[in-house]
């Protein structure tokens, strides 16, 4: 069976390129760090990096949820609204009952997010609404609920107990708690995606939904599941956000959903579904955080921040689609001679 061996060796080089994706991103990040450190000496310090990690922790968590959903060929535009709503509701709760154990508040936030995410999932699987439309609708609805729930009021730092504020900002083992929470979420998501049937089914569904159905994968349930997970993670992120910024506002995380999509795409998650890794998404979030931090340190106008981010997204997608084109060439039909 010599013919078979032959055909494999060539595509492997493309595969090597694909694996290169995370490595290339890492090299890019390191080079960027060197450039920024020339500009601003405080950049390459432990404290600054601890700050960057703190800044991107919430983004990384929610981006992981977003990436899972994009891998199933969906998208969740309501993540920022879910985050904002759970932040507001848990903050109101802790203001009313300041002695509630912090762990309970975290669980409450996750439960609330889980319910909100389930609604998204139901709309998409039972209501047959395309994900982008369903979550665009709930984006507005959940944001509206924040206003209704709070009557437009904010929760300020002095209204929150110290224990709650320590949740995100306190440090253990040199890093802020929030960073540990994000690392914990990342590890769980990594194990879930790589070592559970349900996690692998996410990839199978994303790469070929029809075949997934024929193979006996309960595709509706898988889709429902990713939106529920997204809700749960947003709930956790909401509590963390309120704790970190010591406030819950009606405009909490406004527009944040686009950051999560950006981190996913830069990290190599394919909008066509089926492709995406946890390390990739984490690097995507890290890159966004470093750019924000670096540009601020170098006192460059915030306009550039947006422009640079946009440029990176396009770069990621263009390099992606040119790869896809190469792959398609290996699929051209031929006639038997």
């Amino acid at each position, binding site marked *: *069976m010599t*013919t*078979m*061996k032959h*055909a*494999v060796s060539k*595509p*492997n080089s*493309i*595969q090597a390129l694909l694996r290169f994706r995370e490595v290339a991103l890492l090299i890019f990040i390191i080079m960027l760090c060197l450039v920024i450190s020339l500009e601003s000496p405080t950049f390459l310090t432990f404290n600054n990096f601890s700050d960057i990690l703190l800044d991107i922790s919430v983004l990384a968590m929610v981006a992981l949820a977003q990436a899972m959903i994009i891998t199933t060929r969906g998208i969740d535009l309501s993540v920022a609204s879910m985050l904002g709503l759970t932040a507001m509701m848990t903050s109101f709760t802790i203001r009313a009952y300041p002695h509630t154990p912090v762990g309970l508040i975290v669980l409450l936030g996750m439960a609330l997010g889980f319910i909100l995410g389930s609604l998204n999932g139901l709309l998409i699987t039972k209501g047959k609404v395309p994900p982008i439309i369903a979550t665009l609708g709930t984006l507005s609805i959940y944001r509206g609920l924040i206003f209704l729930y709070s009557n437009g009021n904010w929760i300020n730092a002095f209204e929150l107990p110290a224990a709650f504020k320590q949740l995100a900002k306190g440090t253990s083992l040199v890093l802020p708690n929030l960073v540990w929470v994000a690392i914990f979420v990342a590890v769980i998501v990594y*194990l879930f995606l*790589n*070592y*559970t*049937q349900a*996690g*692998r*089914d996410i*990839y*199978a569904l*994303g*790469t*070929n939904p*029809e*075949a*997934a*159905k*024929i*193979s*006996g*994968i309960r595709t509706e349930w898988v889709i429902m599941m990713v939106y529920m997970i997204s809700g749960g993670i947003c709930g956790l992120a909401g509590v963390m956000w309120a704790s970190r910024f010591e406030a819950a506002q009606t405009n909490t995380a406004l527009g944040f959903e686009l950051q999560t999509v950006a981190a996913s795409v830069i990290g190599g998650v394919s909008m066509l579904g*089926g*492709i995406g890794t946890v390390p990739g998404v984490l690097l995507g979030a890290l890159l966004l955080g470093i750019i924000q931090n670096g540009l601020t340190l170098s006192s460059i106008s915030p306009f550039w921040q947006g422009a640079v981010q946009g440029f990176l997204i396009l770069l990621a997608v263009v390099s992606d689609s040119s790869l896809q084109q190469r*792959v398609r060439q*290996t699929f*051209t*039909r*031929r*006639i*038997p*001679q």
Partner: protein
Amino acid sequence: MSEPILSLTNISKRFAGVHALNGVHLDLCPGEVHALLGENGAGKSTLVKVITGVHQPDSGEITLNGEQIHLSDPRQATRLGISAIYQELSIFPDLDIAENIFVGRRPTLAAGLVDWRRMYREAGKLLDQLGVHLDLKTKARYLSIAQQQMVEIARALSVNSRILIMDEPTSALTLSEVADLFRIVRRLREDGTAILFISHRLEELFEIANRVTVLRDGAYVDTRTMDEVTQEELIRMMVGRKVTELFPKKEVQQGEVILRVRNLTRKGVFENISFELRKGEILGMAGLVGAGRTEVSQAIFGVVPADEGTVEIDGNEMRVTNPQQVMACGVAYVPEDRQHHGLVTAMDITDNITLPILTRFTRRGWLANKEASQAAYNAATQMEVKATTVWQKVRELSGGNQQKVVLAKWLTTTPRILILDEPTRGIDIGTKAAVHSLMSNLVGQGIAILMISSELPEVLGMSDRILVMHEGHMTALFDRSEANQEKIMLAATQAV
């Protein structure tokens, strides 16, 4: 002959009132390769889907090992040991080979976590069993069609399938790949697997199959042992029906040559296609699905480039680079896939019909809507499109009426050469007759028609001459008087 492992008795299945299967029988024995034969649309795919639980029959009985069963979904069929390898492979491009084999049934550790090590080990064993050597961590995306098939066969083995259905497994393979596949099929047969093998290539069936069941128009024709049957007999069983007077072909005085194609070649798709088309002539293109007919017509129309060869219209040789250029010479192309290429189904009838001739209704850059809808109305009336208004969305129309809209759209361009790709596929018999009589009228007006059709009666009934293709090559060119179904089938299956 051993006892059948799977028996289907009197299976019928209707779709929208049309019998896709009507009283079909099939017996599968362990250790046999059973061929399923029939023309396009004879009901083979539907039968396969009944066996795999995708479709439930309206009536009839299925027994497995002598016990009557009811197959409600594909998972149940898999559990009972029935696996299918479909024409469109159910491969997961972004998963690696091992996971493709075990998708849906990955081995797990006690804690419920996926046991990758065991998965690779068992996948390796399965491929060894098949005599295939592939890197298990390669993503399926980078495999050839033949290799992907091997992965699917390994998947079937992994669930201990006793019944394996292969739907045209050889259609995309090279000869050496077919030989590899057959080696594996024979090995599976020796191990006692029952294999249902669908292929259009008759010579292959004589090589690999033990018995054959023939279907025609959804009905059961016969089951025979391969040793006792000849190719000619099989072809007669497949096509053996009378060509009815459905085809109102009029004798038309043919004019001069309007289209001449010489040695047209697109590497890897079709080679050395040459023919002439005269005014008032209908040239039928026959062949099996995938023979390259559509690709030839698209090359003539400039949708895809040809690598070699020439196209002459009115004696002027032209380098075809895009459809606009060919349209300007009076060529219209009605594609096969109406939903994707022929119509903008979300737009209304007027928009669709006037799309190619919009410039005609444009005044200083603005569209004269009233004139456009009037023109659309005239064209639609001429074609007898059944719709409430010309502003009705095309997707709300039936398949037959959609086809009429496509025809109306191209007729408004007053073409001199009309390329029709499967003009009557999937439409009801009444509309079919209307389309056929329209074609007759058009050639009466001196228009030349190039018609691709997989329906032999249509080809025979409507064409003045018939070009037959097989796997990218032109294998025959018959005159109307000398053509018959058997000859065309022979040329199309290259059994000559």
